[in-house]
């Protein structure tokens, strides 16, 4: 099947006084219509910058390059700034992390919702308002018509996040990017917002990129997963398979860190990943995970580790053979 968005060999570099910071290195991203791709990783691993470069919204100092980047058959490398502005919001929408700061406090909800549609499509104000009411109801907000006149500070966090989602859907985009959509929310609301995103995605047949650091969220909602570490994708594959048999030592370590009610023994020591993420400034020799890996050997220091495919769509970035990696899960 043809991917909706296909990015190959994405690099993001930020020149600093201390040297060039390679925030994203050789990342491949592919999303199909109606499917969810999750980008997972700890803070600073480059997951947000990857999607910002797709949207061409990087900070002015940062520069991105890619071997190829195709969205809906269109080469995004060749579009002008004006064309990109047409794509943003209407073809690719983004839901940002903080509903508290990403809404403008000076405009009403209605104003902000209608803006996207009025900018991209030639519709009347009334039609835009109808669409806004329709979507607010869709995302589970009651008394939608009266909400249009409210300002963001009059809404709770959960409601604001719903408004953000509705705003993303205004132009019926084929691709939606959600950057930590539920991090700022309570657990009970989180489950509802995720269920809402999943049902809307199915209904409108959208592709979705979900950025998060919460493996629990990923496991429940994603179809495919990219695990990122220090600017690289260290493991990718179908969600079920990846959580069943994680290959990369980093993924295995992450899964051991999480206490699971009923599975981990309360009060016992949780697994942890010792050490710290290496600085992404300058060139790396060898594996990025070498300083924190339990199974490190001499080859890891010198050999550049390539992405290896085990099956179609299932890759990992480690010098150990898949069989050895699988054995490591059992030992732990």
């Amino acid at each position, binding site marked *: 099947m043809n991917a909706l968005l296909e990015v190959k060999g994405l690099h993001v570099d930020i020149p600093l006084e201390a040297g060039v910071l390679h925030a994203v290195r050789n990342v491949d991203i592919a999303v199909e219509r109606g499917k969810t791709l999750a980008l997972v990783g700890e803070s600073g691993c480059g997951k947000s910058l990857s999607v910002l470069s797709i949207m061409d919204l990087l900070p002015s100092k940062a520069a991105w390059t890619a071997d190829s980047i195709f969205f809906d058959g269109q080469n995004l490398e060749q579009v002008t700034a004006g064309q990109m502005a047409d794509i943003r919001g209407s073809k690719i929408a983004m839901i940002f992390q903080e509903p508290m700061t990403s809404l403008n406090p000076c405009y009403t909800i209605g104003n902000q919702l209608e803006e996207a549609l009025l900018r991209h499509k030639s519709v009347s104000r009334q039609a835009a308002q109808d669409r806004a009411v329709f979507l607010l109801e869709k995302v589970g907000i009651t008394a939608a018509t009266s909400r249009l006149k409210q300002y963001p500070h009059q809404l709770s966090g959960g409601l604001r996040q719903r408004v953000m989602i509705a705003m993303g859907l205004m132009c019926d985009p084929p691709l939606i990017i959600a950057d930590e959509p539920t991090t700022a929310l309570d657990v009970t609301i989180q489950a509802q917002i995720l269920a809402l995103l999943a049902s809307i995605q199915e209904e409108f047949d959208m592709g979705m990129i979900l950025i998060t*650091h919460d493996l629990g969220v990923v496991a429940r909602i994603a179809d495919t997963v990219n695990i990122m570490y220090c600017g690289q994708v260290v493991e990718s594959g179908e*969600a079920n398979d990846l959580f069943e048999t994680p290959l990369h030592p980093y993924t295995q370590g992450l899964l051991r860190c999480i206490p699971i009610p009923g599975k981990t023994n309360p009060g016992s020591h949780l697994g942890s990943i010792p050490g710290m993420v290496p600085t992404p400034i300058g060139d790396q020799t060898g594996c990025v995970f070498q300083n924190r890996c339990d199974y490190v050997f001499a080859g890891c220091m010198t050999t550049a580790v390539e992405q290896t495919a085990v099956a179609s769509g299932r890759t990992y970035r480690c010098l150990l053979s898949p069989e050895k990696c699988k054995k490591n899960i059992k030992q732990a």
Partner: protein
Amino acid sequence: MTTALLQTEDVTKVYKISTGIFKGKQSLTAANGINLDVNEGEVMGLVGESGCGKSTVAKIILGLEKATSGNVIFAGAPIAGMDRQEMSRRIQPIFQDPYSSLNPRKSIEAIVSLPYRVHKVGDKRAMQVRVAEILETVGLPARMRYSYPNQLSGGQRQRVAIARALMMSPELVICDEPTSALDVSVQSQILNLLLDLQEQQGLTYLVITHNLCVVEHIATRVAVMYLGRIVEEAETKALFANPRHPYTHALLASVLTPEPQLGLPETHLGIAYPNPIDPPSGCTFHPRCPQATDVCKQARPETRVEAGHLVECHHPH
């Protein structure tokens, strides 16, 4: 039975909130008759959604807020009559965000040694020895005493916050969301550290969090708060195995564990968290409760205790 180190007796906190220039003030009941017993050497988990009053309870215990009514009794004596310095030596907090709880202009040594200087315990030499000791206890290299917070990672900062809290060997440590600002791999390190310290030094923790996985892992007892009331309290095992309040049910169902075959849970909770200025009649949970009946709308449920399992519901499981 072990003795209760901390007891709160019907602690209530009412804030007066301004609603507009001509409208006068309305009252918001943040904590409504909280009875909490924390035994020595216990880890008590306090869970609930944002706005349920769990941080207010922590502030009252720390003496940062005065309760409108009710008493907090610490080691047999009411804290209202206790000396502030004395209290701050025995009860210490660890806050949520290590990025804002450390002064960026002070070195780690200055931050960690502040309690020592406030209490005027010893001379400079003794202080330096103690700082070195406590940094080692929390797993930070000794050279870090000269660093500043901006040179440290999130996990290291949280270790500094823990070191500061433990400087005067307190009896009770109040951890307000100790790991929610941290990455998962760091979260597990901090949880391991908290558990180790509790074992070594016989500490008592009150852990306030919304992360039920964390609570299940480290707490021995759990209290669930909803709109200023404790609606259920039990031993951790009993609570997770047999939750009796429908709200606890919903909370437990919303926990997302990395098990892809399970899919997304359906909590049956409406979206709207009620306005605490104008709380619902009867049982405050009834507008969101899937099992609510007419009784729930009219009468406030009584607190029932069966075999150490407290629940406040008309129709418990």
